[in-house]
């Protein structure tokens, strides 16, 4: 028979054990509720890159080295010498990040950057007005999308130009030695038709007829308007939230564009990319962190509900139809994947690495980390980071693109500096 004081000691130990169990369970329940109930807030922090992150940066940079062309441009997809102004912006982002992360030494960076900027300053413009939507990146003539062998002017895109305007500003601010070359890129652009009545405008050549139309829906529209403002384009309506509506997805009200798709043929994709890029570059100055948090929270809830990591975005594919918009919401439906021509492509739904890493470095929470780490390894160290993975078949989407690898590097730079990149760039490098 144990002595009395031993019995008392055991009873106390039992009580302490019980308290620990109850306290841990309560804390777990409370945090789980908090993580899925409230709109997450961004947590910008400068962190040391882990070995895995550094390896990812090197993998992403391998894409640049492998697909670099003589004129300094990088092909927008592996072994496919095309580019757009959106992709060229991702190239500037990737090069800047690689240099700042110590992957690309200064002399090589300066040489390469000077070459890219002089190439961009010399490309033939659509009707001598603005950059065409797509180019043969090697021969530097305008083409249609995916048609690098045929010379063709197909119009200009305000959204693409907004992104590159933003990056030309960042590069010019950060590296005064390249400032003039950055200005020279857009010095010959005729900006008048980029905005009308406060809206962003683009053109689309159909046959011989040019359609001049409002461009952009909630997300992309505000992000592009913010970038174009840096080169003097004022588009008040595009910068506003006049068409903002909310719809419930996964029991959270996510922002959508109220304009009807069928009138304009422009789909109101709600996807990660514009929110992620706005966060990384502008600190959610164009869109708001609350709107971004709602788009993220819907994906977090889906991820928890289905058990499938969810970071949906527009992305290239390694198989037909080659490009899809994985949308949190589009055309009245949640969780829909459309190809570039607007047809459903449900078998190609999946998550994107660029969205996963972007969300994570911006918000840094349990779920963003889980999704990012789930996808961080998807790539080939000699060829680049892959686009993401397909939910059907649970297999990697091995598409290798400039946009994915550029944004991956951009996100890692953001992680390293912990500040929106437009703000960070205002402290010029020596």
């Amino acid at each position, binding site marked *: 028979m144990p002595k009395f004081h031993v019995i008392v000691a055991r009873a106390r130990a039992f009580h302490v054990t019980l308290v620990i169990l109850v306290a841990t369970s309560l804390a777990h329940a409370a945090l*789980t509720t908090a993580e899925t109930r409230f709109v997450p807030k961004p947590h910008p922090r400068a962190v*040391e890159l882990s070995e895995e992150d550094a390896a990812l940066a090197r993998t992403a940079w391998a894409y640049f080295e492998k697909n670099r062309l003589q004129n300094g441009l990088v092909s927008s997809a592996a072994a496919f010498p095309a580019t757009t102004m959106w992709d060229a912006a991702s190239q500037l982002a990737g090069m800047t990040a690689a240099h700042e992360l110590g992957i690309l030494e200064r002399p090589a960076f300066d040489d390469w950057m000077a070459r890219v900027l002089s190439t961009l300053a010399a490309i033939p413009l659509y009707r001598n007005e603005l950059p065409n939507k797509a180019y043969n990146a090697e021969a530097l003539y305008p083409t249609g999308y995916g048609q690098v062998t045929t010379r063709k002017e197909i119009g200009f895109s305000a959204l693409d130009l907004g992104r590159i305007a933003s990056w030309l500003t960042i590069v010019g601010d950060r590296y005064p030695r390249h400032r003039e070359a950055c200005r020279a890129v857009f010095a010959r652009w005729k900006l008048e038709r980029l905005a009308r009545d406060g809206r962003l405008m683009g053109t689309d050549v159909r046959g011989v007829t040019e359609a001049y139309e409002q461009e952009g829906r909630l997300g992309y529209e505000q992000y592009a308007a913010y970038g174009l403002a840096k080169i003097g384009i004022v588009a008040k309506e595009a910068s506003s939230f006049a068409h903002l509506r909310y719809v419930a997805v996964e029991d959270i009200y996510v922002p959508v564009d109220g304009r009807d798709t069928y009138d304009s043929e422009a789909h109101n994709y709600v996807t990660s990319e514009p929110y992620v890029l706005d966060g990384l570059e502008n600190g959610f100055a164009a869109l708001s962190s609350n709107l971004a948090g709602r788009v993220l929270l819907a994906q977090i809830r889906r991820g928890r509900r289905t058990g499938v990591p969810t970071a949906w975005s527009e992305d290239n594919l390694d198989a037909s139809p080659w490009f899809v918009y994985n949308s949190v919401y589009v055309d009245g439906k949640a969780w829909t994947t459309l190809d570039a021509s607007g047809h459903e492509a449900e078998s190609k739904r999946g998550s994107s690495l660029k969205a996963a890493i972007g969300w994570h470095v911006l918000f840094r929470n349990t779920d963003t*980390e889980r999704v990012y780490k789930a996808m961080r390894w998807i790539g080939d160290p000699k060829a680049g980071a892959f686009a993401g993975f397909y939910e059907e078949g649970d297999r990697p989407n091995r598409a290798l693109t400039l946009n994915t690898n550029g944004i991956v590097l951009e996100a890692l730079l953001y992680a390293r500096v912990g500040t929106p990149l437009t703000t960070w760039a205002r402290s010029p490098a020596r």
Partner: protein
Amino acid sequence: MRMATLPQSRDAVVTVRPPARSRGSVLSGFRYVADGSRDLRIDMARGLAIVVMVTNHLTGSSYLNAVTQGRIYVSAAEAFVFLSGFVLGFASLRRVEDGGLRAASRALVARAGTLYRTYLVLAVVAAVVTLVHAGAAAPIFRELATPPWKAMLAIPIFGVSPRLLDVLQLYVLLLCASPVALYALRRGWTAPLLLASAAAWAFHQFHPYALSATPLGREHPYFVLAAWQLVYVVGFVFGYHRTALSNVLRRAPGWLLPILAVAGVAASVVANHLDTRLGVWPVGVVDRAFWTAATDRSSMGFARLPSAAALFTLIFSLFDRFYRLFARTIGPGLVALGQSSLYVFVVHIPFVVAWHALGLPMQSAQITTIVQLGVLVALLAMVRSRFLFNIVPR
């Protein structure tokens, strides 16, 4: 692979000598026989861990790194942290019995102070070197936060976690918390202590940002406090209850633990090989995501725990059963390094900095291996000659 070092007592360096051969089978003649109060098998294990640490910090393609890096879901860091806890648990019990809980706690805090001062000196020197010439102390600081006073302020309050020195921060925090663990053990709260530690670890697995107040929180690339404390606490408890534990193990069949250990190590090695080298398992992205989390080093994923337990058991069993063989070969060297692990940790840092500053590693695996062996021999010679023993803590 990142390594750690071990805070150890100020005991004098004990030289190893083969104990007298005992009667029994041929194998039992190689067995370890206690000779004095110090367990030389533990020193040997620490010595092995520090050899692995040094070679891994001297990065590059070498035969040593090929054997010791990325073969199993365990690093020498887990061994150091566990052994630190074990030795301190055991030593604290003796101190409590000799001088009471307060004296034992004071010793733990004093050791934390020694490690803190060591960390501070090394970090400040590295920071100053970086300020003078950016990148010169690259293995520790790639660059400093600007303005420099911010970096200097961050160092003493653990606002930054410099590479190589981060493990000292972990030890300082663990040692500062050790009196609480000791108090709990004195009260007979072994189960609650282990449960609290496991709860913090499990909580971190589900909510990695919730316990992120310190720089050793979630953002730490290697040693997340909430996760790594489990290894230390288990070691501390085992050390404290060493006698009882030995009695329990003695009752188990002698072959059981080694067999389990071999099976565990084999499973971990095969899984690691399929996972990292061939990439054939797990195949699916979601499954691979799960396995990546399970083997994550910074948050001590759950699959690492049995891997570490199996590997430590296997190594300890080998040192125990074949002690005399080791004692006649590499044993004395390992013991010497293991008994001065903090000293070796400190003095290996200039070697690592020089290694990077000189643009090493070399292209040739043979040359890299030879240089790594040269560094290990130099470190051993420094220990043997007690070089700067009066300045560098041990």
